[in-house]
Structure formats: structure tokens, C-alpha cells
């Protein structure tokens, strides 16, 4: 068997594990719906639970834009991490031959990202007290 084939074969157990996990979770849910108590439903019982008060307005309110900023910062760093992983794997191999390249490329990347990070910080992305 050629090695690339065996790499792919390793994902077959992953697929099987996913199937087993789905079966397990769905099975327990089915069991609970069979064994579970079934009482009479009423409009009051099926209302969303908001501490016993009747819900006012719609269930989904609009959110602060600050969540959006946090998500954007997360994407920034997530993409950095995606590049850091292959960088880290290559670190020991390349530090001997091309130390400037391996350090310089990541340092340049990070400096630019850090400008964005500092900018968001200075603009008060995390000042939630108001």
C-alpha cells in the first residue's frame, strides 16, 4: 500500500467514530423520548421561561456591536495561528540554514497584526463599562 493511501485510510476510523457518536447521542435521545414522562401540554407550560413572567417582545433581541469587534479580533489571531503552526513545525529545521528568513517572515507578519490589535485596543474595543 502506498503511504499516501494509508494516510487517507486513517480517516476512515474518524468517519466511523463520527457515525458511532451520532448513533449513541441519537439513541439516548430516542430512549429518553420513549421512557420520558409525557404530561399534558398547555400554552402556559410551553411559553419561553423568563423567570415566571410573560415574555415581552421577541425572543431574539439585537446585540451590541462590540461582539462583532471581538469576533473580528478573533479572526485576526485565528489566521495568525493557522500560519504559526506550519511555521512552528519548520522552526527547528530552518533555524540552522535561514534564521533571518524564518524569524523575519513571522516577525513582519506579527508586527502588522499587532498594529491592528493595538489600534482596536486603543479605540476601546474592550471597554464594556458604560
Amino acid at each position, binding site marked *: 500500500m502506498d503511504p499516501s493511501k494509508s494516510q487517507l485510510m486513517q480517516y476512515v476510523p474518524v468517519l466511523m467514530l463520527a457515525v458511532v457518536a451520532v448513533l449513541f447521542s441519537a439513541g439516548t435521545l430516542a430512549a429518553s423520548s420513549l421512557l420520558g414522562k409525557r404530561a399534558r401540554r398547555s400554552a402556559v407550560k410551553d411559553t419561553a421561561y423568563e423567570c415566571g413572567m410573560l415574555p415581552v417582545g421577541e425572543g431574539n433581541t439585537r446585540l451590541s456591536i462590540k461582539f462583532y469587534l471581538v*469576533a473580528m479580533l*478573533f479572526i485576526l489571531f485565528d489566521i495568525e495561528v493557522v500560519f504559526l503552526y506550519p511555521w512552528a513545525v519548520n522552526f527547528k529545521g530552518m533555524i540552522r540554514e535561514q534564521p533571518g528568513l524564518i524569524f523575519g517572515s*513571522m516577525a513582519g507578519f506579527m508586527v502588522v497584526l499587532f498594529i491592528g490589535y493595538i489600534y482596536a485596543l486603543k479605540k476601546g*474595543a474592550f471597554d464594556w463599562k458604560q
Partner: protein
Amino acid sequence: MQACLFYLFAALTLLCGVLVIANPFTRNPVTSAMFLVLTIVSLAGLFVLLHAFFLAAVQILVYAGAVMVLFLFVIMLLDLKEEERRKIKAGAGVLGLAAAGGIALLMIAVIRQSNAGVGLKPASAEGSTLDLGKRLFTDYALPFELISLVLLVAMIGTVLLSKKDLK
């Protein structure tokens, strides 16, 4: 087995992709977002079948993890009920179709020129992440640095858009 899985994932990708933009049952943006997640996951499955394991993991990590969260936060900024009531304008529909057609033509032209599949080798099995990193930090160092600029622009844009709220 492999061909079977390929057709399964490809069909899932296409089906979910269509359901993202044209769901006949609901116009709820959250439902569209959920189908987008399914599209992304089945795309990752296609990457695995192409031996691009690193790319598959990154596809899920970045798109299903990070970009999806951003989309959901944006959706939660909107008034969903108003979005569902809104009628599609005829002019917007025509323009949208024209844009989609233009992109489709461009894609077809590119694919026809690229003579895909010729001279490609399967990714080396051992240490594909290692090779990818080596190429990225030597041959493609400049595009790599430019990515950081794109991200910086995105960050500044976000801060400027939300500035009214912040200060």
C-alpha cells in the same frame, strides 16, 4: 469507496450551497448560516479526499469556527423579522443574476484555460504540513506578508464601522 465518498461530499457541498442562498422553506438568515456550515464541512471532506489534511483542518478551524461566528454576530446585529418581511426588488434581482452570471463565465474561462489535473502529483504523505510551511516561508514569503496587510485593513474597517458605538 473513495469515489463514493467524493460524490457524497460533492453533492452535499452543492446542495447545501444552494440552500444557503435559495432555501424554498424559509428566508431566515440563521438557517442559511447553518447550511453554510454544512457546506464548509463537506468541503473539508473533499480536501481530505485530496490528501490536503492540513487544509481540511484549517478550513474547519477558520471558516466553521471563526468566520461563522463573525457571520452569526453580524446576523444578531440585524432585525431578523424585518429581513424576513423584506421583498426582493426586481432591479436587485436582475443585477444579482447578472453578477452571478459574470462570475460563472469567469470561472468557466479560468477552468478551461488551466487544463486542470495535468502534471499534478499527489501531496507527499509524510509531513505535508512541513512541506507547506517550507514553501510558504521561502518561495511565498511576500504573499504571506501581504496577508497581514489585508487582515490589518479588515481590522481597521471593523473599528471604523463600529466607531460611533465605541466613543
